[in-house]
């Protein structure tokens, strides 16, 4: 059964510019989906429409049996607790410690007062520590986030999303500011989370070869339209040309790895 379904989703910022036009696809539970496409193609907008950080102008989004655009404020908050989100610039509170940042993921489940005072239950703290340990950050639990490296910050970002007990995680270019080494660690973690915990992943990516290596399915977006939707094996150089609008020979894409394996 589809966990997420987009039907004819359209988003216009004003009458002149259309960010998304007629986007339709569905995602199964536990699937690892990469979204690729040139900058400004609407990848980020699409991701943010799913948890309604951006309101759509047309079409419907179904998540876990509910219509996202019809939810009221309270139900929207409940929906957002079920969808984690990871960002290119990590978006952590730099002055707080790792554990405090991770526990922010629980705020959606708490009453206003408990959240304001930062009162977390023993169970929540235990879970946060387990996730931090799982991501290999147990030495940094009490260090401030501005002292961490980029890769470590992104792992805190993943931990913050995981502590929500999400059904799905949206990743907005999670490795775009990281070096290749840290990128590999982050992508491995995302893949493990997806297969190990059965959490659906939607990942915006700039690196085609990373998308080829890690995903179950790739969606190509160009000028607000879905121009490719299929398995990594189906993504031929011609298809890449469709998505990016240039010969794949011109692009810095390494297709050799896939052919070798």
């Amino acid at each position, binding site marked *: 059964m589809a966990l997420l379904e987009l039907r004819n989703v359209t988003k216009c910022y004003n009458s002149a510019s259309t960010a998304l036009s007629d986007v339709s696809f569905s995602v199964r539970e536990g699937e690892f989906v990469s979204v690729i496409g040139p900058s400004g193609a609407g990848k980020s907008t699409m991701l943010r429409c799913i*948890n309604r*950080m951006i309101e759509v102008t047309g079409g419907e989004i179904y998540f876990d049996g509910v219509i996202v655009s019809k939810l009221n404020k309270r139900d929207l*908050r*409940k*929906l*957002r*607790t079920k*969808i*984690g*989100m990871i*960002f290119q*610039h990590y*978006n*952590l*509170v*730099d*002055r*707080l410690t790792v554990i405090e940042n991770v526990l*922010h*993921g629980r*705020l*959606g*489940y*708490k009453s*206003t007062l408990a*959240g*304001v*005072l*930062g009162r977390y239950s023993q169970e929540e703290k235990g879970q946060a520590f387990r996730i931090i340990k799982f991501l290999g950050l147990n030495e940094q639990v009490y260090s401030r986030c501005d002292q961490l490296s980029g890769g470590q910050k992104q792992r805190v970002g993943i931990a*913050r*999303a995981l502590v*929500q007990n999400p059904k799905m995680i*949206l990743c907005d270019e999670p490795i775009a500011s990281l070096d290749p080494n840290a990128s590999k660690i982050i992508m491995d973690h995302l893949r493990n989370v997806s297969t190990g915990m059965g959490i659906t992943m939607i990942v915006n990516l700039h690196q085609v070869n990373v998308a080829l290596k890690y995903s179950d399915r790739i969606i190509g977006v160009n000028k607000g339209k879905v121009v490719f939707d299929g398995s990594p094996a189906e993504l031929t150089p011609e298809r890449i040309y469709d998505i990016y609008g240039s010969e794949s020979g011109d692009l810095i894409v390494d297709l050799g790895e896939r052919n070798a394996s």
Partner: protein
Amino acid sequence: MQIEESIKGWGQLSSDEIADTPVRPLNRSSFAMRIILLILSVLTIYALSTIDYNSVDIKKAVSDTLSNFKTMFLQPYSHRFSLPDAFYGVVVTMGLAFLTTLFGGIIALFLGLLAAQNLGLKQVANIIKVFVAFIRAVPTILWVLIFAVSAGLGSAAAVIGMTFHSVSYLTKAYSESFEDLDRSVIEALMASGANWWQIVFQAVIPSSVTYLLSWTFLRFEINFANAVAMGAAAGAAGIGFDLFMASGFYFDLREVGLITYFILAFAMALESLSTNMKGRLRKRI
């Protein structure tokens, strides 16, 4: 090949085209700036050359002033005034400063949250900012005198008027500190389902707390100076009132000197104390 050609292109560019282009071209704003500076300097020269000071003997005026300063600062002494009295006066003044900073800080915290562009509605933020700018444009002493109409001259009017001005000052300072926090951090917490109050207390205030502290301490020092002036001008008691009595009522220059030294010493102690406290609080946060 291509790169070499483009390098050659750069070389040509630097040799002939750049030579006589000014770095800052004369546009409208820089032209207006120059005109204003010119007018101001002409006015200054005119005013200085036509000023009427023929009834003042400059030599005598300077020497009188210097001798007054000498009595004031080199022979400070008081026969009406004991140390505990002076100390009590300063404590009253400090109480005034503390109270107004505390009230002002609490009110400004909430107004500052509403006035921060990244937290609230843009219209609300702008309305508060304009309103607060208006309050700030009027000096503290005028607000105290305005409130004195209803509350009568004295400490009540001074507290209300100084709080009023502190609120406007701190609201601007606080809201700008809040705006320092990246919009994206707020977005991240919203995406996880946190509500506005939770985001404010879990992300916004923790990230800006050191700014908030330093602005508050700065305002406390300003309020101490204001409280001295209010004591003299609005009869709000404290050391300022004693200073006013000594100078305007008893014409006792030596006592004025003594009180000035006392205020100076206290202000310095206050300054070092606040720096110390700030440092300690920062370490803990």
